[in-house]
């Protein structure tokens, strides 16, 4: 049997959807028994959400004042202490999991498999490399503990409706004080979350200014879409970093992705290759984005975007 520990990502109140995707990934491992670890200052609401995920056998609630902020340096020794008899320890391949899991793997003296996109057996997985330009099958020796991060865009979220027991857990891990949380600047808004939205409108360098980029928000609102950006648009200061889609930004899999003024660098395409339908609007008919677009429209975005807005109004 595979006993799998999933490290929950949350904001102190709600579980991040990436955790439900980790559960689906874990459920694909043959004969899996899934435990979710919720580390927080107060675990109750997050633990309840984790317990409701179908496929979860049990939730471990680890309450500690140091867990008020999810810092890799303080969490890793706790997760390593919990990892004990588990065969697999998984976390999401979000900035949270990417930061934490290698630290856990090193403490456990094991290798990490990053960005798992498919499960072939308890010890064999597939993952993208070279910005998704190649897929490699990775195998770890049976008997070795598997630490991995799960590429959320490759898995559907586990359904809710389950009712796993929640157990309080403590560890005797030594929690260091050398790393302190100062602040987070999260732009809160009412728009759908980029990582989980079913529709995304994304803008690139061709927008030309932060003001022009803002016009995409109106179109996004008409579509009920989240807003994304290419690296070029973020580098140019048109959009904040958390909107970046691509190899080093967010990897997303919406039903509809509308790329506006994005040329389609390979690093950007990596972030959207799981989108069901890609629409590209660009004045350059040779732009690489058209090679992956399901529907392409060659033209001036400054005319097309307002027109789309009107048509969708």
């Amino acid at each position: 049997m595979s006993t799998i520990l999933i490290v929950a990502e949350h904001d102190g109140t709600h579980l991040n959807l990436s955790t439900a995707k980790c559960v689906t990934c874990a459920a694909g491992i043959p004969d899996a028994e899934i435990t979710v670890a919720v580390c927080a200052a107060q675990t109750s609401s997050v633990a309840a959400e984790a317990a409701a995920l179908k496929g979860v056998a049990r939730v471990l609630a680890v309450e500690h004042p140091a867990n008020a902020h999810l810092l890799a340096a303080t969490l890793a020794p706790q997760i390593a202490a919990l990892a004990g008899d588990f065969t697999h320890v998984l976390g999401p391949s979000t900035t949270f999991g990417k930061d934490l899991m290698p630290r856990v793997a090193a403490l456990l003296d094991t290798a990490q498999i990053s960005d798992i996109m498919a499960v072939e057996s308890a010890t064999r997985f597939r993952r993208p490399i070279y910005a998704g330009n190649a897929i490699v099958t990775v195998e770890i020796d049976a008997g070795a503990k598997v630490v991995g991060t799960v590429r959320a865009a490759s898995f559907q979220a586990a359904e809710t409706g389950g009712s796993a027991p929640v157990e309080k857990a403590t560890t005797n891990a030594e929690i260091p004080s050398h790393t302190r949380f100062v602040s987070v600047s999260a732009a809160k808004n009412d728009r759908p979350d980029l990582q989980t939205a079913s529709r995304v409108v994304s803008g690139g360098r061709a927008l030309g200014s932060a003001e022009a980029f803002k016009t995409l928000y109106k179109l996004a609102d008409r579509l009920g879409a989240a807003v994304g950006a290419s690296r070029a648009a973020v580098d140019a200061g048109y959009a904040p970093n958390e909107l970046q889609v691509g190899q080093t930004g967010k990897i997303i899999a919406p039903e509809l992705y509308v790329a506006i003024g994005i040329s389609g660098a390979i690093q950007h395409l990596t972030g959207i290759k799981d989108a069901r339908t890609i629409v590209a609007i660009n004045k350059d008919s040779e732009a690489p984005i058209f090679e992956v677009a399901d529907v392409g429209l060659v033209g001036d975005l400054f005319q097309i975007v307002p027109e789309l807005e009107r048509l969708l109004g």
Partner: protein
Amino acid sequence: MKRILVGIKRVVDYNVRIRVKPDASGVITEGVKMSVNPFDEIALEEALRIKERGAAEEVIVANIGPADCQQQLRTCLAMGADRALHVQADGIVEPLVAARALLKLTEREQPFLVILGKQAIDDDNSQTGQMLAALWQRPQATFASKVELDGDKARVTREVDAGLETLEVELPAVITTDLRLNEPRYVKLPDIMKAKKKPLETLTLAALGVEQRQRLKLTRFEPPQQRQKGIKVKDAAELVATLKSKGLL
């Protein structure tokens, strides 16, 4: 002496179109341009800027890899690193092995800061910095977009999914760099000449007492699934109609 250690990896250049070998045994690297991993260049640039501000006295650049990597170490010396350490290792160096080797180098050189790229653009693992921090039992600040040093502490702004997070870490610490931390300088020809005279020390994993264990077998390489060729529409109205007919609106 106040030292910064920078780790660099030799990777297939950013602009090379990656092709998988027909026998699925790997990615074609023969005859393609190799470069310093772009994130590691950013790491080196940050170290050089810290030194130029007077907050560090020496910048050491280190690599764990085959003999060819000395080319990339020379590039780093030309950028401005003071000296280079080359830990020779053929074959696959897994992140945990790299982290163990870097740990040995930190014990030897006693840096107050180790800066690495947040990931290498070949295997996209994003592990080595975090693993080093764990083994070294020191803080980590990954995906950094801003680094401010203040005595025995550093305040690091990180690019995270929610936005920008700021951490305060006690030094020594490990920092991994994101894209927007800085823009690396270009190497000038006279600097390339000067770099030839800078010290480059060759070591081995065995001499450092690090076992080159390969725990992951890479059994098969495949190209990604291609998307089907799409259609072109002539205007916004046809676009909306097409999306409606596909049930997307």
